[in-house]
Protein backbone atom coordinates (compact mmCIF):
# COMPACT_ATOMS: atom_id res chain seq x y z
CA UNK A 1 0.00 0.00 0.00
CA UNK A 2 1.28 3.42 -0.90
CA UNK A 3 1.55 5.72 2.10
CA UNK A 4 -0.63 8.82 2.32
CA UNK A 5 2.46 10.97 1.97
CA UNK A 6 3.39 9.21 -1.25
CA UNK A 7 -0.18 9.45 -2.55
CA UNK A 8 0.07 13.20 -2.02
CA UNK A 9 3.38 13.32 -3.90
CA UNK A 10 1.79 11.39 -6.75
CA UNK A 11 -1.09 13.88 -6.96
CA UNK A 12 1.46 16.65 -7.49
CA UNK A 13 3.43 14.66 -10.08
CA UNK A 14 0.32 13.91 -12.14
CA UNK A 15 -0.12 17.62 -12.81
CA UNK A 16 3.11 17.69 -14.81
CA UNK A 17 1.75 15.50 -17.59
CA UNK A 18 -1.08 15.60 -20.11
CA UNK A 19 -2.20 12.05 -19.24
CA UNK A 20 -2.21 10.02 -16.04
CA UNK A 21 -0.41 7.20 -17.87
CA UNK A 22 2.65 9.44 -18.20
CA UNK A 23 2.98 9.46 -14.42
CA UNK A 24 3.58 5.70 -14.49
CA UNK A 25 7.40 5.73 -14.36
CA UNK A 26 7.57 8.36 -11.59
CA UNK A 27 4.89 6.49 -9.61
CA UNK A 28 6.71 3.17 -9.99
CA UNK A 29 9.87 4.88 -8.75
CA UNK A 30 8.00 6.09 -5.67
CA UNK A 31 6.53 2.62 -5.09
CA UNK A 32 9.95 1.00 -5.38
CA UNK A 33 11.52 3.61 -3.14
CA UNK A 34 8.87 2.82 -0.49
CA UNK A 35 8.98 -0.99 -0.66
CA UNK A 36 12.40 -1.76 -2.16
CA UNK A 37 10.69 -3.64 -5.01
CA UNK A 38 7.39 -3.74 -6.88
CA UNK A 39 5.02 -6.57 -6.02
CA UNK A 40 2.04 -7.72 -8.06
CA UNK A 41 -0.21 -6.19 -5.42
CA UNK A 42 1.62 -2.87 -5.83
CA UNK A 43 1.35 -3.04 -9.61
CA UNK A 44 -2.40 -3.54 -9.26
CA UNK A 45 -2.64 -0.59 -6.87
CA UNK A 46 -0.63 1.64 -9.21
CA UNK A 47 -2.83 0.53 -12.11
CA UNK A 48 -6.00 1.50 -10.24
CA UNK A 49 -4.49 4.80 -9.19
CA UNK A 50 -3.56 5.78 -12.74
CA UNK A 51 -6.50 4.08 -14.43
CA UNK A 52 -4.29 1.60 -16.28
CA UNK A 53 -4.82 -2.14 -16.74
CA UNK A 54 -2.58 -4.37 -14.64
CA UNK A 55 -1.13 -5.82 -17.83
CA UNK A 56 0.15 -2.42 -18.91
CA UNK A 57 1.84 -1.83 -15.58
CA UNK A 58 3.40 -5.30 -15.62
CA UNK A 59 4.55 -4.73 -19.20
CA UNK A 60 6.32 -1.54 -18.20
CA UNK A 61 7.85 -2.96 -15.01
CA UNK A 62 9.24 -5.94 -16.91
CA UNK A 63 10.65 -3.76 -19.74
CA UNK A 64 12.87 -1.55 -17.59
CA UNK A 65 15.81 -3.24 -15.87
CA UNK A 66 15.78 -0.87 -12.91
CA UNK A 67 12.32 -1.91 -11.75
CA UNK A 68 12.48 -5.03 -9.59
CA UNK A 69 9.56 -7.40 -9.39
CA UNK A 70 11.43 -9.56 -6.86
CA UNK A 71 12.77 -8.38 -3.51
CA UNK A 72 16.51 -7.68 -3.45
CA UNK A 73 19.13 -8.18 -0.78
CA UNK A 74 20.00 -5.38 1.65
CA UNK A 75 22.82 -4.24 -0.63
CA UNK A 76 22.36 -4.35 -4.38
CA UNK A 77 25.82 -4.48 -5.93
CA UNK A 78 25.75 -3.52 -9.59
CA UNK A 79 29.04 -4.04 -11.37
CA UNK A 80 29.65 -2.74 -14.86
CA UNK A 81 31.38 -5.19 -17.21
CA UNK A 82 30.98 -3.23 -20.44
CA UNK A 83 34.01 -2.44 -22.61
CA UNK A 84 35.59 0.54 -20.80
CA UNK A 85 35.36 -1.27 -17.46
CA UNK A 86 36.41 -4.60 -18.98
CA UNK A 87 39.58 -3.01 -20.39
CA UNK A 88 40.50 -1.78 -16.92
CA UNK A 89 39.89 -4.95 -14.98
CA UNK A 90 36.19 -5.45 -14.22
CA UNK A 91 36.78 -9.24 -14.34
CA UNK A 92 38.81 -8.95 -11.14
CA UNK A 93 36.20 -6.71 -9.53
CA UNK A 94 33.42 -9.15 -10.31
CA UNK A 95 35.52 -12.02 -8.96
CA UNK A 96 36.18 -10.12 -5.73
CA UNK A 97 32.45 -9.43 -5.36
CA UNK A 98 31.49 -13.06 -6.00
CA UNK A 99 34.11 -14.18 -3.51
CA UNK A 100 33.01 -11.77 -0.81
CA UNK A 101 29.25 -12.13 -1.25
CA UNK A 102 29.25 -15.82 -2.11
CA UNK A 103 26.83 -15.36 -5.01
CA UNK A 104 26.96 -15.10 -8.79
CA UNK A 105 25.45 -12.23 -10.82
CA UNK A 106 21.67 -12.43 -10.77
CA UNK A 107 21.59 -14.05 -7.34
CA UNK A 108 20.74 -12.97 -3.81
CA UNK A 109 22.62 -14.41 -0.84
CA UNK A 110 20.74 -16.75 1.51
CA UNK A 111 21.01 -14.24 4.36
CA UNK A 112 19.52 -11.63 2.02
CA UNK A 113 22.41 -9.28 2.59
CA UNK A 114 23.63 -9.17 -1.02
CA UNK A 115 22.17 -9.09 -4.49
CA UNK A 116 24.78 -9.00 -7.23
CA UNK A 117 24.04 -7.83 -10.77
CA UNK A 118 26.27 -7.52 -13.80
CA UNK A 119 25.09 -4.34 -15.48
CA UNK A 120 25.57 -2.44 -18.71
CA UNK A 121 27.50 0.84 -18.98
CA UNK A 122 26.60 3.14 -16.07
CA UNK A 123 28.20 6.24 -17.64
CA UNK A 124 31.27 6.25 -15.42
CA UNK A 125 33.82 5.10 -18.01
CA UNK A 126 36.34 7.68 -16.81
CA UNK A 127 36.33 5.98 -13.41
CA UNK A 128 36.45 2.41 -14.70
CA UNK A 129 36.23 -0.15 -13.26
CA UNK A 130 33.25 0.77 -11.17
CA UNK A 131 30.29 -0.54 -9.24
CA UNK A 132 27.16 1.05 -7.84
CA UNK A 133 25.31 0.38 -4.63
CA UNK A 134 21.96 2.10 -4.74
CA UNK A 135 22.59 5.59 -6.11
CA UNK A 136 26.22 5.68 -4.99
CA UNK A 137 28.98 5.10 -7.55
CA UNK A 138 32.33 3.63 -6.51
CA UNK A 139 34.98 4.24 -9.15
CA UNK A 140 38.62 3.50 -9.85
CA UNK A 141 38.30 0.15 -8.07
CA UNK A 142 40.86 -2.60 -7.53
CA UNK A 143 39.97 -6.08 -6.25
CA UNK A 144 41.50 -5.04 -2.90
CA UNK A 145 39.52 -1.79 -2.60
CA UNK A 146 36.36 -3.68 -3.62
CA UNK A 147 36.96 -6.24 -0.89
CA UNK A 148 37.51 -3.43 1.61
CA UNK A 149 34.38 -1.59 0.51
CA UNK A 150 32.18 -4.68 0.81
CA UNK A 151 33.76 -5.52 4.16
CA UNK A 152 32.73 -2.11 5.48
CA UNK A 153 29.05 -2.76 4.78
CA UNK A 154 27.31 -4.22 7.80
Amino acid at each position, binding site marked *: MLTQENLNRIEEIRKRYATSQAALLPVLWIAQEQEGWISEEMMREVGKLLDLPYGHVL*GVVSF*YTMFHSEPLGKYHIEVCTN*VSCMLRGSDGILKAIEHHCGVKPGETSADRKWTVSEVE*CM*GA*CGGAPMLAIG*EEYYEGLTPESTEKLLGSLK
Partner: protein
Amino acid sequence: MERYILPDIPDYSAIDVYEQHGGYGALKKALGMKPEEVTDEVKKSSLRGRGGACFPTGLKWTFMPKQSTKAKYLCVNGDESEPGTFKDRQILELNPHALIEGTVIACYAMGITTAYIYLRGEYGKWIRMLQKALDAAYAKGYVGEKILGSGFSTNVYLHKGAGAYICGEESALMNSLEGQRGYPRVKPPFPAQFGVWGCPTTINNVETICNVPLIINKGWEWYSKIGAAKHPGPILVGVSGHVNKPGVFEVPTGELLTDLIDKCAGGVPGDKKIKAVIPGGSSTMILRGEAIEGVRMDADSLKAAGSSVGTAGMIVMDETTDLIRVISRISKFYYHESCGQCTPCREGTGWIWKILKRFELGEGQMKDIDLLMDIANSIEGNTICALGDAAAWPVQSMIRRFRDEFEKRVKPAAVAVAS
Protein backbone atom coordinates in the same frame (compact mmCIF):
# COMPACT_ATOMS: atom_id res chain seq x y z
CA MET B 1 41.33 26.87 -25.02
CA GLU B 2 39.03 28.44 -22.49
CA ARG B 3 36.37 26.02 -21.31
CA TYR B 4 32.76 27.06 -21.75
CA ILE B 5 30.63 23.98 -21.12
CA LEU B 6 32.65 22.76 -18.15
CA PRO B 7 34.39 25.97 -17.00
CA ASP B 8 37.11 25.77 -14.43
CA ILE B 9 35.21 27.79 -11.81
CA PRO B 10 34.68 26.43 -8.28
CA ASP B 11 31.03 25.94 -7.21
CA TYR B 12 29.75 26.84 -10.68
CA SER B 13 26.71 24.65 -10.01
CA ALA B 14 25.56 27.16 -7.36
CA ILE B 15 23.19 29.68 -8.89
CA ASP B 16 24.89 32.70 -7.29
CA VAL B 17 28.27 31.74 -8.74
CA TYR B 18 26.69 31.04 -12.13
CA GLU B 19 25.06 34.49 -12.07
CA GLN B 20 28.30 36.21 -11.02
CA HIS B 21 29.91 34.87 -14.18
CA GLY B 22 27.15 36.12 -16.43
CA GLY B 23 24.80 33.18 -15.99
CA TYR B 24 21.20 33.69 -17.14
CA GLY B 25 22.42 36.74 -19.09
CA ALA B 26 21.74 34.84 -22.30
CA LEU B 27 18.16 34.22 -21.18
CA LYS B 28 17.67 37.95 -20.52
CA LYS B 29 19.13 38.72 -23.93
CA ALA B 30 17.01 36.09 -25.67
CA LEU B 31 13.80 37.38 -24.09
CA GLY B 32 14.59 40.77 -25.65
CA MET B 33 14.80 39.16 -29.09
CA LYS B 34 12.02 37.76 -31.25
CA PRO B 35 11.74 33.96 -30.92
CA GLU B 36 12.60 33.47 -34.59
CA GLU B 37 15.72 35.63 -34.13
CA VAL B 38 16.87 33.24 -31.40
CA THR B 39 16.33 30.25 -33.69
CA ASP B 40 18.12 32.07 -36.48
CA GLU B 41 21.12 32.75 -34.25
CA VAL B 42 21.37 29.04 -33.39
CA LYS B 43 20.90 28.11 -37.04
CA LYS B 44 23.68 30.45 -38.20
CA SER B 45 26.04 29.20 -35.49
CA SER B 46 26.10 25.80 -37.26
CA LEU B 47 25.66 24.02 -33.92
CA ARG B 48 25.13 20.32 -34.57
CA GLY B 49 23.55 17.91 -32.13
CA ARG B 50 25.90 16.25 -29.68
CA GLY B 51 23.77 13.13 -29.17
CA GLY B 52 25.25 11.15 -32.04
CA ALA B 53 23.55 12.15 -35.28
CA CYS B 54 25.22 15.60 -35.63
CA PHE B 55 21.96 17.06 -36.97
CA PRO B 56 21.92 20.89 -37.29
CA THR B 57 20.13 22.10 -34.16
CA GLY B 58 18.76 25.40 -35.52
CA LEU B 59 17.33 23.61 -38.55
CA LYS B 60 15.62 21.09 -36.27
CA TRP B 61 14.02 23.96 -34.36
CA THR B 62 12.57 25.40 -37.57
CA PHE B 63 10.65 22.14 -38.13
CA MET B 64 8.37 23.06 -35.24
CA PRO B 65 5.12 24.64 -36.43
CA LYS B 66 4.93 28.33 -35.51
CA GLN B 67 1.17 28.20 -35.08
CA SER B 68 -0.25 25.15 -33.39
CA THR B 69 -3.61 24.48 -31.85
CA LYS B 70 -1.94 21.76 -29.82
CA ALA B 71 0.58 22.20 -27.01
CA LYS B 72 4.25 21.99 -28.03
CA TYR B 73 6.94 20.19 -26.09
CA LEU B 74 10.68 20.09 -25.68
CA CYS B 75 12.35 16.89 -24.51
CA VAL B 76 15.96 17.18 -23.47
CA ASN B 77 17.68 13.86 -23.91
CA GLY B 78 19.86 12.99 -20.93
CA ASP B 79 19.44 9.24 -21.20
CA GLU B 80 23.11 8.86 -22.14
CA SER B 81 23.81 5.14 -22.10
CA GLU B 82 26.05 4.53 -25.09
CA PRO B 83 29.02 2.59 -23.72
CA GLY B 84 32.03 4.88 -23.50
CA THR B 85 29.89 8.01 -23.00
CA PHE B 86 29.90 9.89 -19.70
CA LYS B 87 29.72 13.58 -20.61
CA ASP B 88 26.18 14.52 -19.58
CA ARG B 89 26.90 13.39 -16.05
CA GLN B 90 29.68 16.01 -15.88
CA ILE B 91 27.25 18.69 -17.00
CA LEU B 92 24.68 17.70 -14.37
CA GLU B 93 27.32 17.87 -11.71
CA LEU B 94 29.38 20.88 -12.79
CA ASN B 95 27.15 23.10 -14.90
CA PRO B 96 23.46 22.31 -14.37
CA HIS B 97 22.37 25.93 -14.86
CA ALA B 98 23.65 26.05 -18.43
CA LEU B 99 21.33 23.13 -19.12
CA ILE B 100 18.39 24.88 -17.47
CA GLU B 101 19.12 28.23 -19.13
CA GLY B 102 19.52 26.59 -22.54
CA THR B 103 16.29 24.66 -22.05
CA VAL B 104 14.31 27.82 -21.29
CA ILE B 105 15.86 29.68 -24.25
CA ALA B 106 15.01 26.77 -26.56
CA CYS B 107 11.42 26.82 -25.26
CA TYR B 108 11.20 30.55 -25.92
CA ALA B 109 12.56 30.17 -29.45
CA MET B 110 10.01 27.50 -30.34
CA GLY B 111 7.05 28.82 -28.32
CA ILE B 112 7.07 25.84 -25.99
CA THR B 113 5.53 26.03 -22.53
CA THR B 114 6.53 22.61 -21.15
CA ALA B 115 9.91 20.91 -21.25
CA TYR B 116 10.93 17.54 -19.88
CA ILE B 117 14.53 16.65 -19.19
CA TYR B 118 14.67 12.86 -19.48
CA LEU B 119 17.57 11.46 -17.47
CA ARG B 120 18.84 7.93 -17.18
CA GLY B 121 17.65 6.23 -14.00
CA GLU B 122 21.15 5.28 -12.87
CA TYR B 123 21.96 8.98 -12.42
CA GLY B 124 19.72 9.30 -9.32
CA LYS B 125 22.33 11.25 -7.44
CA TRP B 126 22.93 13.63 -10.33
CA ILE B 127 19.21 14.04 -10.96
CA ARG B 128 18.93 15.36 -7.42
CA MET B 129 21.75 17.83 -8.12
CA LEU B 130 19.91 19.06 -11.19
CA GLN B 131 16.59 19.25 -9.29
CA LYS B 132 18.28 21.42 -6.67
CA ALA B 133 19.56 23.75 -9.39
CA LEU B 134 16.14 23.77 -11.05
CA ASP B 135 14.43 24.70 -7.75
CA ALA B 136 16.89 27.58 -7.37
CA ALA B 137 16.18 28.74 -10.93
CA TYR B 138 12.42 28.64 -10.31
CA ALA B 139 12.89 30.62 -7.07
CA LYS B 140 14.75 33.35 -8.97
CA GLY B 141 12.16 33.56 -11.71
CA TYR B 142 14.28 32.06 -14.52
CA VAL B 143 11.76 29.26 -15.00
CA GLY B 144 7.99 29.22 -14.48
CA GLU B 145 5.41 31.99 -14.82
CA LYS B 146 6.25 35.25 -16.62
CA ILE B 147 9.98 34.66 -16.73
CA LEU B 148 11.98 37.74 -15.69
CA GLY B 149 8.86 39.87 -15.96
CA SER B 150 8.31 39.01 -19.63
CA GLY B 151 5.11 37.60 -21.05
CA PHE B 152 6.78 34.22 -21.53
CA SER B 153 6.11 31.27 -19.21
CA THR B 154 7.45 27.75 -19.35
CA ASN B 155 7.76 24.85 -16.96
CA VAL B 156 10.68 22.45 -16.84
CA TYR B 157 10.30 19.00 -15.29
CA LEU B 158 12.80 16.23 -14.72
CA HIS B 159 11.76 12.74 -15.75
CA LYS B 160 13.71 9.74 -14.55
CA GLY B 161 14.21 6.77 -16.86
CA ALA B 162 14.57 3.25 -15.52
CA GLY B 163 17.49 1.55 -17.22
CA ALA B 164 16.76 1.08 -20.90
CA TYR B 165 19.39 2.13 -23.45
CA ILE B 166 16.76 2.29 -26.16
CA CYS B 167 15.06 5.25 -24.45
CA GLY B 168 17.92 7.41 -25.68
CA GLU B 169 16.41 6.94 -29.15
CA GLU B 170 14.17 9.98 -29.49
CA SER B 171 10.89 8.28 -30.34
CA ALA B 172 11.41 5.59 -27.69
CA LEU B 173 12.10 8.41 -25.25
CA MET B 174 8.74 9.93 -26.06
CA ASN B 175 6.93 6.62 -25.56
CA SER B 176 8.75 6.14 -22.28
CA LEU B 177 7.75 9.63 -21.19
CA GLU B 178 4.16 8.70 -21.98
CA GLY B 179 4.39 5.82 -19.50
CA GLN B 180 4.85 3.05 -22.03
CA ARG B 181 7.54 0.55 -22.87
CA GLY B 182 10.39 2.30 -24.65
CA TYR B 183 9.54 1.15 -28.16
CA PRO B 184 10.81 3.36 -31.00
CA ARG B 185 8.15 4.69 -33.36
CA VAL B 186 8.04 4.40 -37.12
CA LYS B 187 9.01 7.68 -38.79
CA PRO B 188 7.38 9.58 -40.41
CA PRO B 189 5.54 11.17 -38.76
CA PHE B 190 8.48 13.02 -37.25
CA PRO B 191 8.39 14.42 -33.70
CA ALA B 192 7.90 18.01 -34.89
CA GLN B 193 4.56 16.91 -36.38
CA PHE B 194 3.53 14.09 -34.06
CA GLY B 195 5.58 13.84 -30.88
CA VAL B 196 4.66 13.44 -27.24
CA TRP B 197 0.88 12.85 -26.96
CA GLY B 198 0.67 13.49 -30.67
CA CYS B 199 1.84 17.09 -30.23
CA PRO B 200 4.73 18.90 -31.95
CA THR B 201 7.90 18.00 -30.07
CA THR B 202 11.60 18.72 -30.37
CA ILE B 203 14.21 16.46 -28.81
CA ASN B 204 17.71 17.81 -28.12
CA ASN B 205 20.68 16.30 -26.33
CA VAL B 206 21.79 17.71 -22.95
CA GLU B 207 25.17 18.87 -24.27
CA THR B 208 23.57 20.43 -27.34
CA ILE B 209 21.27 22.52 -25.15
CA CYS B 210 24.24 23.66 -23.03
CA ASN B 211 25.73 25.31 -26.13
CA VAL B 212 22.68 27.52 -26.63
CA PRO B 213 23.37 30.14 -23.90
CA LEU B 214 26.91 30.44 -25.23
CA ILE B 215 25.69 31.14 -28.76
CA ILE B 216 23.18 33.74 -27.57
CA ASN B 217 25.76 35.44 -25.33
CA LYS B 218 28.64 35.58 -27.75
CA GLY B 219 26.82 35.56 -31.07
CA TRP B 220 26.79 33.06 -33.90
CA GLU B 221 29.86 34.49 -35.64
CA TRP B 222 32.06 33.99 -32.60
CA TYR B 223 30.71 30.48 -32.04
CA SER B 224 31.01 29.32 -35.61
CA LYS B 225 34.74 30.11 -35.60
CA ILE B 226 35.50 27.61 -32.83
CA GLY B 227 36.96 24.34 -34.11
CA ALA B 228 35.95 22.63 -37.34
CA ALA B 229 34.13 24.94 -39.77
CA LYS B 230 31.29 22.57 -40.63
CA HIS B 231 30.88 21.18 -37.12
CA PRO B 232 31.96 24.00 -34.82
CA GLY B 233 31.92 24.68 -31.12
CA PRO B 234 33.29 23.20 -27.97
CA ILE B 235 32.75 19.46 -27.61
CA LEU B 236 32.97 17.17 -24.61
CA VAL B 237 35.11 14.16 -25.41
CA GLY B 238 35.20 11.20 -23.06
CA VAL B 239 38.40 9.20 -23.22
CA SER B 240 38.38 5.81 -21.52
CA GLY B 241 40.08 2.45 -21.74
CA HIS B 242 43.87 2.13 -21.90
CA VAL B 243 44.93 5.69 -21.11
CA ASN B 244 46.75 7.10 -18.08
CA LYS B 245 44.19 9.79 -17.24
CA PRO B 246 40.73 8.82 -18.45
CA GLY B 247 38.10 11.53 -18.25
CA VAL B 248 35.90 14.05 -20.04
CA PHE B 249 37.77 16.80 -21.87
CA GLU B 250 36.32 19.94 -23.35
CA VAL B 251 38.08 20.81 -26.59
CA PRO B 252 37.19 22.62 -29.80
CA THR B 253 35.83 20.23 -32.42
CA GLY B 254 38.49 19.11 -34.84
CA GLU B 255 41.03 18.13 -32.19
CA LEU B 256 43.41 15.38 -33.29
CA LEU B 257 42.51 12.00 -31.80
CA THR B 258 46.20 11.49 -31.05
CA ASP B 259 46.28 14.76 -29.07
CA LEU B 260 43.17 13.75 -27.16
CA ILE B 261 44.87 10.50 -26.19
CA ASP B 262 48.37 11.85 -25.51
CA LYS B 263 47.85 15.43 -24.34
CA CYS B 264 44.44 15.24 -22.66
CA ALA B 265 44.35 11.66 -21.40
CA GLY B 266 48.05 11.30 -20.63
CA GLY B 267 48.90 8.67 -23.24
CA VAL B 268 48.80 4.90 -23.08
CA PRO B 269 50.16 3.21 -19.92
CA GLY B 270 53.61 1.70 -20.40
CA ASP B 271 53.84 3.53 -23.76
CA LYS B 272 52.27 0.52 -25.40
CA LYS B 273 51.17 0.75 -28.99
CA ILE B 274 47.53 1.47 -29.73
CA LYS B 275 45.82 -1.45 -31.38
CA ALA B 276 42.40 0.08 -31.91
CA VAL B 277 40.24 3.08 -31.10
CA ILE B 278 36.47 3.34 -30.95
CA PRO B 279 36.06 7.08 -31.55
CA GLY B 280 32.51 7.95 -30.54
CA GLY B 281 30.83 5.39 -28.30
CA SER B 282 30.53 1.65 -28.82
CA SER B 283 28.25 1.87 -31.87
CA THR B 284 30.76 3.81 -33.96
CA MET B 285 33.06 1.95 -36.32
CA ILE B 286 36.32 0.80 -34.82
CA LEU B 287 39.58 2.20 -36.25
CA ARG B 288 42.97 0.55 -36.38
CA GLY B 289 45.55 2.20 -34.15
CA GLU B 290 47.75 3.26 -37.07
CA ALA B 291 44.73 4.73 -38.88
CA ILE B 292 43.99 7.42 -36.28
CA GLU B 293 47.05 9.45 -37.26
CA GLY B 294 45.81 12.84 -38.50
CA VAL B 295 42.14 12.04 -37.80
CA ARG B 296 40.19 14.73 -36.01
CA MET B 297 37.20 14.76 -33.68
CA ASP B 298 34.66 16.24 -36.06
CA ALA B 299 31.98 14.87 -38.35
CA ASP B 300 33.84 15.26 -41.66
CA SER B 301 37.23 13.99 -40.52
CA LEU B 302 35.84 10.90 -38.82
CA LYS B 303 33.55 10.18 -41.75
CA ALA B 304 36.53 10.29 -44.09
CA ALA B 305 38.36 7.90 -41.77
CA GLY B 306 35.46 5.45 -41.96
CA SER B 307 33.77 6.10 -38.66
CA SER B 308 31.74 8.83 -36.94
CA VAL B 309 31.73 11.27 -34.03
CA GLY B 310 28.77 9.62 -32.32
CA THR B 311 28.72 10.83 -28.74
CA ALA B 312 32.48 11.53 -28.74
CA GLY B 313 33.10 8.73 -26.27
CA MET B 314 36.52 7.40 -27.25
CA ILE B 315 37.62 3.98 -26.11
CA VAL B 316 41.35 3.35 -26.48
CA MET B 317 42.73 -0.19 -26.68
CA ASP B 318 46.40 -1.05 -26.44
CA GLU B 319 48.29 -3.80 -28.28
CA THR B 320 47.49 -6.42 -25.62
CA THR B 321 43.72 -6.12 -26.09
CA ASP B 322 41.66 -9.15 -27.05
CA LEU B 323 39.47 -7.55 -29.69
CA ILE B 324 37.29 -10.63 -30.06
CA ARG B 325 36.32 -10.27 -26.44
CA VAL B 326 35.68 -6.56 -27.01
CA ILE B 327 33.34 -7.13 -29.96
CA SER B 328 31.66 -10.01 -28.16
CA ARG B 329 30.97 -7.75 -25.16
CA ILE B 330 29.71 -4.95 -27.37
CA SER B 331 27.40 -7.38 -29.17
CA LYS B 332 26.07 -8.73 -25.89
CA PHE B 333 25.14 -5.16 -24.98
CA TYR B 334 23.11 -4.56 -28.14
CA TYR B 335 21.45 -7.95 -27.79
CA HIS B 336 20.48 -7.08 -24.21
CA GLU B 337 19.23 -3.63 -25.17
CA SER B 338 17.29 -4.52 -28.33
CA CYS B 339 13.67 -3.69 -27.58
CA GLY B 340 12.47 -6.69 -29.57
CA GLN B 341 10.10 -4.95 -31.96
CA CYS B 342 11.96 -5.68 -35.21
CA THR B 343 12.89 -9.27 -36.09
CA PRO B 344 16.31 -8.53 -37.70
CA CYS B 345 17.52 -6.76 -34.56
CA ARG B 346 15.81 -8.95 -31.96
CA GLU B 347 17.06 -12.20 -33.50
CA GLY B 348 20.19 -10.99 -35.29
CA THR B 349 21.82 -9.37 -32.25
CA GLY B 350 21.46 -12.64 -30.34
CA TRP B 351 22.85 -14.72 -33.20
CA ILE B 352 25.84 -12.39 -33.52
CA TRP B 353 26.58 -12.61 -29.82
CA LYS B 354 26.33 -16.42 -29.79
CA ILE B 355 28.70 -16.77 -32.75
CA LEU B 356 31.16 -14.32 -31.21
CA LYS B 357 31.05 -16.30 -27.97
CA ARG B 358 32.32 -19.27 -29.99
CA PHE B 359 35.22 -17.21 -31.34
CA GLU B 360 35.98 -16.05 -27.81
CA LEU B 361 36.39 -19.67 -26.81
CA GLY B 362 38.54 -20.40 -29.86
CA GLU B 363 35.79 -22.46 -31.41
CA GLY B 364 34.94 -20.30 -34.38
CA GLN B 365 34.68 -21.61 -37.91
CA MET B 366 36.08 -19.86 -40.97
CA LYS B 367 32.62 -19.62 -42.57
CA ASP B 368 31.29 -17.95 -39.42
CA ILE B 369 33.23 -14.79 -40.26
CA ASP B 370 31.16 -14.28 -43.40
CA LEU B 371 28.05 -15.39 -41.57
CA LEU B 372 28.61 -12.65 -38.98
CA MET B 373 28.97 -10.10 -41.75
CA ASP B 374 25.84 -11.40 -43.42
CA ILE B 375 23.77 -11.13 -40.24
CA ALA B 376 25.09 -7.63 -39.52
CA ASN B 377 24.28 -6.55 -43.09
CA SER B 378 20.78 -7.96 -42.71
CA ILE B 379 20.16 -5.91 -39.57
CA GLU B 380 21.57 -2.62 -40.89
CA GLY B 381 18.88 -0.41 -42.39
CA ASN B 382 16.15 -2.96 -41.80
CA THR B 383 14.84 -1.82 -38.42
CA ILE B 384 12.55 0.91 -37.11
CA CYS B 385 15.33 2.69 -35.24
CA ALA B 386 19.08 3.09 -35.36
CA LEU B 387 19.80 0.51 -32.66
CA GLY B 388 19.96 -2.07 -35.42
CA ASP B 389 22.64 -0.04 -37.22
CA ALA B 390 24.40 0.56 -33.90
CA ALA B 391 24.61 -3.20 -33.39
CA ALA B 392 25.78 -3.87 -36.95
CA TRP B 393 28.48 -1.20 -37.40
CA PRO B 394 30.92 -2.41 -34.74
CA VAL B 395 30.72 -5.98 -36.07
CA GLN B 396 31.10 -4.96 -39.72
CA SER B 397 34.04 -2.66 -38.99
CA MET B 398 35.74 -5.19 -36.73
CA ILE B 399 35.61 -7.85 -39.42
CA ARG B 400 36.69 -5.44 -42.16
CA ARG B 401 39.60 -4.02 -40.19
CA PHE B 402 40.65 -6.91 -37.97
CA ARG B 403 39.75 -10.04 -39.92
CA ASP B 404 43.02 -11.66 -38.80
CA GLU B 405 41.84 -11.51 -35.19
CA PHE B 406 38.86 -13.68 -36.10
CA GLU B 407 40.95 -16.08 -38.17
CA LYS B 408 43.26 -16.62 -35.21
CA ARG B 409 40.31 -17.87 -33.18
CA VAL B 410 39.11 -20.46 -35.64
CA LYS B 411 39.19 -23.97 -34.20
CA PRO B 412 42.18 -25.84 -35.74
CA ALA B 413 40.05 -28.81 -36.80
CA ALA B 414 37.66 -26.42 -38.50
CA VAL B 415 40.57 -24.97 -40.49
CA ALA B 416 41.49 -28.44 -41.71
CA VAL B 417 37.94 -29.15 -42.81
CA ALA B 418 37.63 -25.81 -44.55
CA SER B 419 40.85 -26.28 -46.51
